[in-house]
């Protein structure tokens, strides 16, 4: 059964004709060419596919495209302001919080979801919040630092001293 799904993606109207079984992540990647959202597992565990639907983090591999009819979807491609990175993206760079980059879009989308509800997360809260995001490269250490820095900048504060010795730009 083919049907047309219309939704808003990164602020722009989008639509695609999909099967009932088409997942939101497939709509994004295969129909809209937004390949920043990744698929790392088939059991809804890894979080590489996290996007925001109507302002909240969801696993786009566990949502049918048809369920997203009319929704407002934000993917990693829509996070930066033009060529200027979002403070959370910048914090990931400043702290070397990504290596292969595959889990990174999901991590950033989850980090933004966390900070929305908890603008001042502790290290422990960050680690617990990331329960649904797997990273095999970083050991999470630098991701935790990055989210703390990103949250601080989003609160309007100066970023904490960079633990790696990266000079502020």
């Amino acid at each position, binding site marked *: 059964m083919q049907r047309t799904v219309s939704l808003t993606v990164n602020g722009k109207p989008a639509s695609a004709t999909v099967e009932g079984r088409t997942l939101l992540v497939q709509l994004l990647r295969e129909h809209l060419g937004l390949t920043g959202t990744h698929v790392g597992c088939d059991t809804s565990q890894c979080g590489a596919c996290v996007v925001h639907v109507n302002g909240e983090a969801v696993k786009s591999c*566990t949502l049918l495209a048809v369920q997203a009819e009319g929704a407002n979807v934000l993917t990693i491609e829509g996070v930066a302001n033009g060529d200027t990175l979002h403070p959370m993206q910048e914090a990931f760079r400043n702290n070397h919080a990504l290596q292969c980059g595959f889990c990174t879009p999901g991590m950033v989308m989850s980090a933004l979801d966390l900070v929305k509800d908890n603008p001042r997360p502790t290290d422990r809260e960050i680690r617990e919040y990331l*329960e649904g995001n797997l990273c095999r490269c970083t050991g999470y250490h630098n991701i935790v630092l990055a989210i703390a820095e990103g949250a601080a900048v989003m609160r309007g504060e100066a970023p904490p001293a960079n633990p790696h010795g990266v000079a502020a730009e």
Partner: protein
Amino acid sequence: MYEFQYHRATSLDDAASRLADEEAKLVAGGMTLIPTLKLRLAKPTELIDLAAIPSLKGITEEGDAVVIGAMTRHADVNRSDVVKRAIPALATLAGHIGDPAVRNRGTIGGSIANNDPAADYPAAVVGLNATVRTNKREIAADQFFTGLFETALQPGEIVTAVRFPKVAQANYQKFKNPASRYAIVGVFVARTPAGVRVAVSGAGACVFRVPAMETALAANFSPDAIKDIQIPQDGLNSDIHASAEYRAHLVNVMARRAVQACA
């Protein structure tokens, strides 16, 4: 996934009438159903989405109870001021189901209708002596969960809400599977108006109560009172993550910790 028809139900009656097709399935948050479909472990002809039925959502106080609509998400229960005030243990439990992205989609109705042996909500529903409301009737918690992925729901019956008595003194302790993060053992202890209840998830094929602990705690609500009450291993789950013996032991440990946290 196998291909299927998708229907976004406009009302409870619409959904129920579609459900007359035995090959059709309801989808609530989809956090269990969609992974199941992806692995081709189910082959429904039609998915009936309950997301657009407003009456199934929301949290209300009804006298000495809190009523949570079936399509209310875990994140909403976790954040609800009503739940946090009336049954804080329930709000906390909802905040530890799955992971944040799952909590933004998963619903209480979907969770209890699925009755996964390792799910958290069944322990709360039984532990708090809640009542499950459907489009046809009300079902007491003790009668609702009937076996492995089985409930008292009849064909065409849809969970509409769960009514929880307000219980201030309650606690849920979960020992997580290190891989899946589901409960290897979860124990919900509550001092309800009807007495102390101890409900166990994860350990068996279906949530169950521990009468011996309930009796002992009724007499003396302290961890020591149940220190020596070991539940039998017979019939408990045993897999690569935990033996039945270990699960039986964890029930005691988690129960004592829950009592401690209540006190």
